């Protein structure tokens, strides 16, 4: 935690200078990579292989789409990249560090501060308001007292983000009072609160109609440009993948 705050002070506002420097790195640096990843699930006594040796590289500042049919293992791959699960074989590297075998504490810290996760079913906490939902990663990051100390700055940033995704009028609403698009935009704001280096999105538009899906995608795109984000998006919609810099196609557990 201390490491991340040193790199990226939480109070630091979104700065234009960062955005200026980033394109230079973009071409040269690999932010995340996966080498020969194998993963299988156990169904009773039967072992079902899902990923059969996947290699990929994600450049900093790129927009990568992972496409494939249902059951091709693209969600599993994203989970492995997000360290929510550990591969049976192979390695995941992030910023030149192997992260798949780190102790859970460190993996949690990386998830919390370096990754922004967006899910198909939004996964907002139903008891919390929009603002509180966006603040959850910060609450998880800080202890009780440091959170109270930094609360004002967090709130300011959260409010900015919520306004940025166009939900300024929905600040105190519960998820149950919002539409799917609004919920997904809240989830995007939540993914951005910790100023992550990479956004991992699992079918962010999968549960939305076309119009809402486009809105969400637009939001994501504009934020990516503003904040110089690396985005990895899993989708089964080939048309969505067209807007990506790079498309990785998964068929039957292998990159094609």
């Amino acid at each position, binding site marked *: 935690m201390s490491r991340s705050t040193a790199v990226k002070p939480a109070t630091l506002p979104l700065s234009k200078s960062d955005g200026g420097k980033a394109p230079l790195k973009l071409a040269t640096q690999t932010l995340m990579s996966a080498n020969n990843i194998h993963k299988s699930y156990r169904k009773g006594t039967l072992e079902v292989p899902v990923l059969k040796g996947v290699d990929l590289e994600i450049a900093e500042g790129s927009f990568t789409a992972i496409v494939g049919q249902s059951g091709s293992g693209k969600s599993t791959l994203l989970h492995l990249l997000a360290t929510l699960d550990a591969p049976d074989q192979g390695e995941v590297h992030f910023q030149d560090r192997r992260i798949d075998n780190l102790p859970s504490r460190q993996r949690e810290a990386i998830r919390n501060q370096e990754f922004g996760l967006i*899910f198909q079913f939004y996964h907002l906490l139903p*008891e919390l308001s929009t603002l509180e939902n966006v603040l959850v990663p910060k609450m998880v990051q800080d202890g009780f007292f440091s959170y109270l100390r930094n609360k004002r700055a967090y709130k300011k940033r959260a409010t900015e983000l919520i306004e940025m995704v166009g939900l300024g009028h929905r600040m105190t609403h519960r998820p149950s009072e919002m539409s799917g698009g609004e919920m997904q935009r809240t989830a995007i704001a939540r993914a951005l609160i910790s100023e992550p280096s990479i956004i991992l999105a699992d079918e962010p538009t999968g549960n939305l109609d076309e119009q809402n899906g486009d809105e969400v995608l637009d939001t994501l795109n504009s934020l990516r440009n503003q904040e110089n984000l690396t985005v990895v998006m899993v989708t089964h919609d080939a048309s969505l993948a067209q807007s990506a810099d790079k498309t990785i196609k998964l068929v039957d557990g292998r990159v094609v």
Partner: protein
Amino acid sequence: MYKLLLSWRYLRTRFIALASIISVTLGVATLIVVNSVMSGFVCEMKSRLHGILSDVEVAAPLLGQIHNPEYHTRIIRDVLGDDIESMTCVVRNPALLTFEVNGRQWTQQVMLLGIDDESFGAVTDFHPYLQNTHKRDQFSFDLENQGYPDWAAANGESWNGESGWDYRRRKVQKIKNAEARRLEQEKLYDLAAAEYLERQAAHSRAWEAHHANGGANAQHEASITSEQPIAASQATFIGPDEPNRSSVEKNMSESGFQYVPLPEKAPDFAAIHAKQPEKANEEKPSALKLAPTHYSQNGGNLRELRKFSPVDTHAKFREEPNFEDFFDPEKDQYTGIILGLAIAKRKTIGEDGELKDFYMVRPGDDVQIMFPTVGGAAKPISENCTLVDFYSSSMHEYDSSFAFVPLKELQKIRGMVDPLTGDASVSTIQIKLKEGANLDEARDKLLAQFPPETYPYDIHTWQDTQRPLLSAVNMELTILNLLLFMIIAVAGFGILATFFMIVVEKTKDIGVLKALGAPSSGVMSIFLGYGMALGLVGTSAGVILGLVFVRYINQIAGVVQMITGQEVFDPTIYYFSEIPTIVSPMMVLMVGLGAISIAVMASVLPALRAARLHPVEALRYE
């Protein structure tokens, strides 16, 4: 932070959790109420049980004696040392108490205690229980003029409620008046009888003169004539020792002749009839003898000699041969006796149908006690005493059995005083220990000093005496606490079940939190915190509810009584006018902590389950 926020939100939004809270609340409130009432009850009961018992007692067996009590008290003082607060010697023996209630004899068994005026009060809480306010401050066995409570008795007498010297004088006066009336009637009877006898004698003489020449046959015939039954009736009424009774008349009365009164004599015979029961009455021993009109030489001297208070008369001159003649109940009292209130008090129904207290005897009345002398060949002794006061310790067991008389008197009467040395033995040495001294330890030390192999003494603490009751109450309290904690444990299982449900319901949220970087321990502490919050809220509500209930328990009992018509707390059974309660902060704290820890423990399993959820599985969960 998210842990607190989520615990709080879950608490506010899950109404199912309310059920668990209510069961915790009820359990805690019940525990507090029951514990407060029980400890209030036990404390009250203990102080009552202890009441007129001393802390530790060295007792000779029944009718036995402890010789040379000074030696024993010295030894006890050596053994127990500084633990002793005070000590007293007591003579204790069973006795029969007899008194008269409206002409009927009432006898009952009592435990008679001869107590030392000063030291007994220091060893036990005897004085505060006395009914006469003067005696509480300045104790004596004298009958008082005032200070007795106004016992609203339904005796149907004009001096209702009175006690003391006034009552005694009035009663004696009444008896004297009745006696005077009786004497007057007797005199009338004597006159009538004399007149009748004279007439009869004249009649007989005339009859005898008339039949002077008649033989035995004629005499026998004559016996059947109408005049004869007069003689028969005379035999009945005047008695067998009458000098003018003849053998013929005797024969006739025995052969079953009916009495036919002479017409002119009828009113006199009615008067004689009326006398009959009163005459029988006169033969009965009465506590209050009529003061004679003249004194014997001896009694007169005593009266001259008397320079003591009226109270001392009995003690000083009991042995005098003419004591009864000399004793004036209007001015004198016998040895004072103090009885338990329950001995004299009975319930009666007054004119308005309400239950009332009826006092069979009251201070100022004389009673008799009969008890055995000491030693192997014990003989019963009967002794007059004047009731000077009641005591009421509110322990029925004591109030219905103990009677107190002065120690020295009892020693003298029972023959416990050595005629040569003048040393008096006792039957019991009672010891009061200092506050906080260990009673059992003191008893064991005394047992070691007076081993039962050598000394035939029974050494026990007051708790030993009441051991069965005390241990029963203690066991009751323990069991009750155990059972009530079971109630809270049941509430704990309720929390367990509810939480498992909530964990299942929140699986996805748990997955999200983990995906956002929340550690397992954090997820676990959400649910532990939730359980603790439930426990805290439930316990606080329970503590408040319980304390309010305890505070207003008597009013609540009244309301319940009003609704159900059943008396919840009958003061005549428990001898408390109100339900006694003691709220111990320690108990409340323990109950509260216990309830909270049960709630936390119940949430451990669901929390562990939540913590072990795999984030991917949890996110996939639909």
